[in-house]
């Protein structure tokens, strides 16, 4: 806390009244002229070494408050100082209608690359020196869908898919250029696990240049969230990273709870931790299993899926759904544990431990697997510049995990370790994931053995429906019930960025509330979006088969990538 106050004071001294501290977030205003100098200061003096997110906001329907400034668009940056684990938001108003452009921050952080492209795609905010390329929507799309005047249900069909094309490479002679070929991988390809497309220029088996095309699963999460109530957004969050759905629920609910200043009961916290860690395990199991299939090791996939199935069964007992569970509500959990669930869970944990040991025996010392995954290393510095988080960052040797850096819930009370790698290659990522699974099971064990009793939902009247007895016997309870059903959860006017450690890295939710029943703007900071944009650079001059291994080890989940 003291550290944070000191940091706050330093920022205040440096930036004066442009700086404020609201909802536990550092907020800084800048304009397009001073943006670059501000960013340089933040990066060099205040050591904000990672760019988490860049996004646009359309303010045209926002009621006038101390949060607005009268200009329609703004470009919002989120930065992270990893040493002190402090985050800052930089808001830059942009007068797009009068042709104002924002200087690009790609020279400071490479991670800005796709985020800026997305901001143009969604809002039409132009970044100086950047090409206006579509990223998530298709190339025939007209307009900017996240602007408030774009209707959510206005479809624009695409006639023909984009053809593969590369500009001539100026650095090579005509003779060399003749040796090169173009190949297209995906978006329907067994190794791309969904909907990724890689266009590669190859020489023999070696990738010389590559372009990535994403957006094949752009399901408009952000637009949908703007049109639904806060609790209705929870099922949408399930489908972000569908390999570990409960973690997204938790991330979303935590953001809204932080905004409303709700402290959820101990039992809810503990249950959320159990669910989060179980889903971390199943997410890593899919990643390792499917990644091994790409390398030809089918056996481990069946082993991994058997363990996954056990966790599915636990979820099914808990709520009836297997994959997309929607288990949390704002203010706590959806329901109490069924009888006998804790014992079942303890048993499952034991079985999974055994299963992981089996996978470990199959892969860890398997010469073919080791040789094929000792490829595509990335340095820690480079990884931070690209905005890596999660196991991929820890595999490079950076000891950064939000569960330790900004512990939420009971993570500061449980005993667990953060595994780190050395080389940042695919094998290290595999090892980090294996160890993380064991640590997660350790956490689950500890929490299950000390499961607090008490209510599973907070008693805060703003978010939780009172018990049925109150509703039927008491006018206050009845009114409370009525208001919540009719008007929904309404967080106070303001903005918040709240992050949790999801299976792939930092999952952040940037939520703007205008005091109404629907969120005004939601931006997800998807961990694999930042990781995947580095793919072209990482696989350059590598074999095609190594690129496939890399794709598996990055664990790109299209639902989260394209939202």
């Amino acid at each position, binding site marked *: 806390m003291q550290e944070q106050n000191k940091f706050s004071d330093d920022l205040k001294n440096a930036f004066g009244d442009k700086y404020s501290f609201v909802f536990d977030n550092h907020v800084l205003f800048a304009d397009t002229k001073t943006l670059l100098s501000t960013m340089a200061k933040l990066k060099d003096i205040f050591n904000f070494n990672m760019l988490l997110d860049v996004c646009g906001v359309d303010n045209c329907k926002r009621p006038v408050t101390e949060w607005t400034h009268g200009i329609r668009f703004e470009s919002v940056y989120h930065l992270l100082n990893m040493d002190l684990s402090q985050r800052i938001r930089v808001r830059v108003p942009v007068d797009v209608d009068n042709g104002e452009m924002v200087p690009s921050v790609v020279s400071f952080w490479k991670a800005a690359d796709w985020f800026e492209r997305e901001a143009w795609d969604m809002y039409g905010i132009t970044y100086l020196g950047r090409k206006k390329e579509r990223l998530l929507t298709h190339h025939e799309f007209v307009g900017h869908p996240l602007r408030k005047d774009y209707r959510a249900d206005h479809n*624009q069909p695409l006639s023909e898919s984009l053809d593969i094309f590369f500009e001539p490479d100026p650095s090579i002679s005509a003779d060399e250029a003749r040796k090169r070929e173009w190949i297209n991988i995906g978006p329907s390809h067994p190794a791309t696990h969904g909907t990724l497309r890689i266009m590669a220029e190859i020489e023999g088996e070696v990738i010389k240049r590559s372009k990535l095309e994403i957006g094949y699963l752009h399901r408009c999460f952000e637009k949908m969230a703007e049109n639904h109530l806060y609790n209705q957004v929870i099922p949408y969050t399930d489908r972000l990273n569908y390999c570990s759905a409960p973690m997204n629920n938790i991330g979303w609910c935590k953001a809204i709870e932080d905004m409303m200043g709700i402290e959820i009961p101990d039992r809810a916290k503990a249950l959320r931790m159990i669910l989060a860690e179980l889903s971390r395990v199943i997410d890593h199991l*899919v990643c390792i299993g499917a990644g091994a299939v790409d390398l030809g090791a089918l056996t481990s996939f069946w082993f991994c899926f058997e363990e996954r*199935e056990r966790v599915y069964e636990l979820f099914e007992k808990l709520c009836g759904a297997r994959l*997309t569970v929607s288990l949390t509500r704002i203010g706590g959990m959806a329901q109490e544990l069924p009888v006998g669930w804790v014992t079942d869970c303890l048993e499952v944990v034991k079985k999974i431990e055994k299963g992981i040991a089996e996978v470990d025996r199959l892969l860890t010392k398997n010469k073919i697997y080791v040789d094929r995954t000792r490829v595509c290393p990335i340095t820690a510095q480079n990884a931070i510049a690209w905005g890596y988080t999660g196991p991929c960052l820890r595999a490079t040797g950076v000891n950064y995990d939000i569960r330790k850096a900004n512990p939420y819930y009971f993570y500061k009370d449980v005993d667990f370790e953060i595994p780190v790698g050395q080389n940042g290659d695919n094998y290290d990522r595999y090892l980090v994931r294996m160890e993380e699974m064991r640590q997660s099971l350790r956490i689950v064990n500890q929490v299950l053995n000390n499961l607090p009793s008490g209510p599973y939902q907070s008693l805060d009247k703003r978010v939780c429906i009172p018990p049925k007895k109150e509703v039927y016997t008491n006018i206050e309870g009845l009114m409370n019930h009525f208001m919540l059903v009719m008007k929904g959860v309404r967080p106070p006017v303001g903005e918040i960025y709240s992050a949790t450690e999801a299976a792939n890295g930092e999952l952040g939710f940037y939520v703007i509330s205008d005091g109404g029943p629907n969120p005004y703007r939601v931006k997800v900071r998807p961990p694999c979006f930042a990781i995947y944009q580095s793919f072209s650079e990482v696989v350059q001059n590598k074999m095609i088969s190594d690129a496939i291994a890399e794709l598996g080890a990055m664990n790109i989940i299209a*639902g989260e990538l394209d939202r």
Partner: protein
Amino acid sequence: MSTNKRLVSALTKNSEEDFALERLIVTTKADSFLEWAKRWGQSNSLWPFPFGTACCAIEYMAVVGPKYDASRFGAEVVRFSPRQSDLMIIAGTITEKQAPILRRIYEQMADPKWVIAMGACASSGGFYRAYHVVQGVSRDIPVDIYIPGCPPTPEAVLQGIMQIQERIKKGVSSYADAQKIEEDELALSTLKAE
């Protein structure tokens, strides 16, 4: 004349195929028997092409996984080449960007072919009434079976596969229907032109 008793008795007594089989022995009318044998073979060795895009694809993995094991229905040989497969399982949301690819892959599949739309998104767009999501794949390709659920349970998917098997045994497919409608329309338009 001796017949393979086991083969004959395994069939339901009053089925047409059964008659065909018996008649083959008596009258050696091969056509209907061969047709029956073809359908029987096709229905029990489906080669699915999983057009997996989203969450449903993960659930489809569970279907072919050890517990639910789609190989019990002869549908475990997952082929990622459309040329080698006869059943397309659309598992996941189809976006506007993805739709041309879906059409192209469907066209590349060899005839005869069947299509399962797995889950709410593929069937109708699901709860994504959004600017980039196709509101049901039947806009682009003919669908045989729709499986409800978000995602459907593996049991539901297995039932969908069994229903496809029934359709094959009856010789029905949406692809053939669509083909026929197209031919009719063509004939009608030429008639009108004349």
